[in-house]
């Protein structure tokens, strides 16, 4: 099975305190530590497991500036066979639609049976997987937490639905799945894997390589307008508890007691 996994380099929310920049146009990006988007890492692990079970290969692709190559290489060190980096000035300021457009073009250059994305990105809107499937006119399942390969060219996919219930569906290949965290336990990257990919050349594809016009991607094609970034104001009845973990717990217990939540 030829599997493509779409991955993104995002600010690491466990390492950074995210704040809004001065102009309110974006988050403050100076001094941020980046890593691979957590959901995507689960998707790559799932792809590696599927490959190991049924054969084929795993390719990871990332769209982004120069540094995006880091996460492609990391996921290759983890076990993906190939990497592709989509980079072009024309891609800058793409919204989910623009990113899906570029990914679609890359996918059609290859012959993939299965495309995986993370369910969402830490800094995104959770749009790319669904849009990509629609553009490809491939079947799509979102928030997938179980994948099994059947013999007849279909997959059995599980999704977590309301109330913690599990839903199983059959889906025809080729298809797009957006992967939920917890589907597996992603492996660590080892030094041997790192050494194996350290000097591998990762092909860079730009808009022209993908046969895309400059209007099809980037700011020109963006359908989402960011109007403002701000921290939500403290609403009626909302209260943010401050202090150390212990202090917060104590305050919370007091609050719940006073409101009759616990006795």
């Amino acid at each position: 099975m030829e599997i493509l996994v779409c991955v993104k380099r995002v600010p690491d929310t466990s390492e950074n305190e995210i704040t809004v920049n001065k102009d309110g146009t974006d988050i403050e990006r100076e001094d941020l530590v980046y890593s691979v988007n957590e959901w995507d890492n689960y998707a790559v692990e799932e792809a590696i497991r599927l490959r190991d079970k049924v054969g084929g290969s795993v390719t990871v692709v990332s769209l982004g500036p120069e540094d995006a190559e880091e996460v492609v290489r990391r996921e290759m060190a983890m076990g993906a066979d190939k990497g592709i980096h989509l980079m072009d000035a024309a891609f800058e300021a793409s919204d989910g639609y623009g990113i899906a457009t570029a990914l679609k073009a890359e996918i059609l250059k290859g012959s993939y049976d299965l495309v995986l994305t993370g369910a969402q990105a830490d800094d995104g809107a959770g749009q790319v997987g669904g849009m990509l499937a629609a553009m490809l006119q491939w079947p799509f399942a979102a928030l997938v937490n179980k994948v099994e390969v059947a013999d007849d060219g279909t997959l059995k996919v599980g999704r977590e639905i309301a109330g913690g219930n599990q839903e199983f569906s059959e889906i025809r290949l080729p298809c797009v799945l957006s992967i939920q965290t917890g589907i597996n336990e992603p492996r660590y990257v080892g030094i041997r894997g790192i050494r194996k990919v350290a000097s591998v050349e990762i092909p860079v594809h730009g808009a022209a390589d993908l046969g895309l016009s400059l209007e099809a991607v980037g700011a020109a094609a963006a359908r989402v307008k960011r109007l403002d970034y701000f921290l939500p104001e403290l609403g009626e009845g909302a209260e943010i508890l401050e202090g150390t973990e212990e202090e917060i717990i104590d305050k919370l217990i007091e609050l719940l007691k006073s409101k009759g939540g616990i006795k």
Partner: protein
Amino acid sequence: MKKRRVFGGGEFLIADIDPEDIFTPEERTQEHQMIYQAALDFVKKEIQPDLDRMEEKDASHIRTLFEMAGELGLNSTDIPEAYGGEGMDKVSTSLVTEAIATATGASFAVAHGAHTGIGTLPIVYFGTEDQKQRYLEKLASGKWIAAYCLTEPNAGSDALNAQTTAVLSEDGTHYLLNGEKIFITNGAWADLFIVYAKVDGEKFTGFIVERTFPGVAHGAEEKKLGIKGSSTTPVVFKDCRVPVENVLFEVGQGHKIAFNVLNIGRYKLGASVVGGCKMALAEAAKYAAMREQFGKKIASFGMIKKKLADMCIRTYMAESMVYRMAAALEDLLNTKTPEERNDAALNARTIEEYAIECSIAKVFGSETLDFCVDELLQIHGGNGYTAEYPAERMYRDARINRIFEGTNEINRLVIAGTLFRRAMKGRLALPDAIQGVREQLKKGPSKTDSGVQASPLALQKRYLASSKQIFLLAAGIAADRLGMQLEKEQEVIELLADMVIMIYAVESGLLRARKILAKKGGAAGDYHAAAVKVYVNDTVAEIVSKAKQVVAFAEEKERLPRLLGAIDHLAGFQPIDTIPLRRFLADKVIKQKRYPF
């Protein structure tokens, strides 16, 4: 890029070294970065969430961690590929060591450091082909854990005074080892021990002893101040039969293994404590940014800012010197052919080259960590004194670093002793350099470079040069006036060693900052420059003071006024205003809530 020049050990005191001659942390390759991140990911997910379990010395948990680390290659950056290792450079080793110490608390870092360092390296550098084949793969995989048995009840710092004996059997097939080793890290868990014993009561010799050899037993766990999650026990050898094939290197050559492996252990300890310093700074910044008093975050108070800035600045110097040192050792090893790298006697000489710098990294690093955890605890106030916060554990854990791998006192003796010994043997041109400073002083003022302030950090560059001159002047006087007596005047040795340590720290930080400024200019370089300006300002004053104390002790009283004046003249020191620089750095630390470089 210009190739780094390879300098001899201690040569930094007399040579003019360029930024291009040293490796800086900013020059880590993408591969280096990935290795650091891989190690960090492992310890953050596997160890950090359950430090309490670690602190309980759960042996099965420890074994699992070692085996996981083995699978990821984290045990074997120093083991050649041919023996199941990763065969990486010393920068990679340092990064793994630092990463493991950054997130694990010190217990696993100490266990892992003892295993991969002093436990494994004696075989890597001094083992026979057969020994390497038999043991290295097991150690790389983490299926076997190693320990290093040097210390005895009556042979601590005086390691060669070991009482453990080894007697060759009549048929010449094995040695019978008898004796007791104490404070053995990994003592209860180890499958393999590097043991030193005296053959026939006199020839100090290294042995590889397997746990399953008859006559090996470990005693009860020590109740320690810190690193409670690591195992520290006595190990007793009673008529322990060790096959002659397990003699390490040569009979009577154990001191070459013991001291050279300690050299490597020392620079690796430097890398480890840098990880601890960064963790301490991050914890301190987080707390200071959260804790409110007088209606304000305490991070906004000047005295707290000063603490954060100083933690950051000293960590910067420690980090600069450790990675400079690691790359220098790698460069030196790379001048040898693969065959030469299998030559144990040559390895001993190679590793010995940087004995001074290894000791410096150990002393400066461990004292920086102690400074950092002390300020960390202080910033926490009363909370820091309770076990509710990590500060308390970190404060206790840090303390051992000034003691093991040679106490900092012993390491100061190594620093000064090695310098003078090399000077006397003509291996280091210290006497010529001392003569040079004297002649310059005779000629009187020739400050052609004063006023040349065109390049950034030019003033700090000049202070570094004058610090070296001041050291040479003081060392020359001490050597001339005290002669062979100098060795016995330990307070003077300590002052001289301190000066050497500070000069290496200043130079490492300064060359790094100059490199950044030259490559990236302003904004990026400003923080580096600020750290160096503050550190140089504080340190030059100390170097001057220490040099004066040396001279005051060694020199005849009537010559003192002239010489003390000469020291001031050489220094040409004018303090700068460091408060804005410290605030500048502290604000960065508070914003990022971590070590900002």
